[in-house]
């Protein structure tokens, strides 16, 4: 999978980091950063949970 983030829309809620800290982190301003934009398939469910939890629809996951 490949992950893209719309950082312009991020409100730093941290929901993605809670759901999947292996893939998502926050910069000094709290804006989402990707630890790995192409994580292993085993993390698919957690990545999708992060995308669903995001209050600002920032995370897009391509297979």
């Amino acid at each position, binding site marked *: 999978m490949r992950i893209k983030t719309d950082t312009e*829309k991020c*409100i730093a*809620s*941290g929901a993605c980091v*809670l759901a999947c800290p292996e893939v998502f982190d926050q910069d000094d*301003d*709290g804006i989402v950063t990707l630890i790995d934009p192409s994580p292993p398939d085993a993390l698919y469910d957690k990545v999708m949970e992060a995308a669903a*939890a995001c*209050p*600002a629809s920032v995370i897009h996951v391509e297979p």
Partner: protein
Amino acid sequence: MVDAVPTVDVDFADPAYVRDPGPTLRRLREIAPIIYDPRLGQYVTCEYRTTARVIGNAKGFGNQEAFFLEAFGGRSVEIMDNPRHNEVRGIWAQRFVRDALAQEEARTRMIAQSVSGAMDPLVQTLRAGGSVDVVPSLSTIPTVVIANMFGLPTEMHEQFSQWSGEMGLHTEPEPANTERGRGLVARAKVGTAALTAYLEEVIDERRTVPGDDLISALVHSPVADSMSHQEIVATCSQLVFAGHETTAKLIAHTVLLLAEHPSQRAALREDRSLLPAAIEEVLRISSPVQAMWRYARPGARVGEIEIAEGDKVMCSLAGANRDPERWSDPERFDITREPKQHLGFGFGTHSCLGLNLARLEVTTWLNQLLNEVPSYQLDGEPDFGTNWVLRAPVRLRVTL
């Protein structure tokens, strides 16, 4: 170090400011990213970057415990710090994600009914040729939705809404040393006491007879074992407060802005896919939660400026949301803007838990309005009242 920071003198309570805060906020924003206001004894930030950095910086800045204890009867989730905050917020977080709300048919139907209940009498009056103040009926929509999510019996909904409205008077910024101010505080205390007493009864019931509602989820969560009784009650009453006036006021702004911009209203009527962006633009330009406060923790800084521990910072969400560095022609209401996150729902770990519920309620309202009353106009000027903190028309008359 107040010396290094420019000072301003602003009377935020001036009715002229409440009616139109934009020009004042623009003036303040142009002075410096952070300024000092001796009248209210606080720093003020009015531009996007600095405001987001203060609100989002939970290590450097916290909330004021005293307000939460008084308003909600205890330490609610918003006064907690991470990691505990995330644990407690996590109890309800999954229930408020976008899909959980929008895909549950019973919920969307309940919201639609709550909206119709408020809108049908308005529509009837309008079609009969009358003029009607939209504001009074809006309050019931979000409180009925919360009452449903709490699993409260229908016969309690009206009383629940009334108590919630009184609890909300805690945000009226009237100084406590005026008669009106004292009256508001007294009513707010009565409302909070009654609401929290009722919630305590419900919490007790749900301990023994759990349901599918939010209160059952809270009391039966393993995290609740580490919460005091006060914290459980306060977290419930904060949810009521957080989702009530805010949502009602956002709907009022939606009605007003679309009255003032009929061509954009027409475009929305023809193409409902524009609704989500339109609602975000209403939120950006109206910012019902006009400001939030943060209190400096030891070592707090804003850029190069050191803020003394305990000093208060007023974070103007309204000012930040019209920052020309972020939005071109920011004073213009334009539903076709490219979506860019604003601070209308806050920022950081304490950002609004209910934002998808709010969006769903406003979307439901707006769809029904566009269907039932495609064309309407203002009947007289809206009255913005005195609340410059949680701001919206307190009277908004419309006619066909």
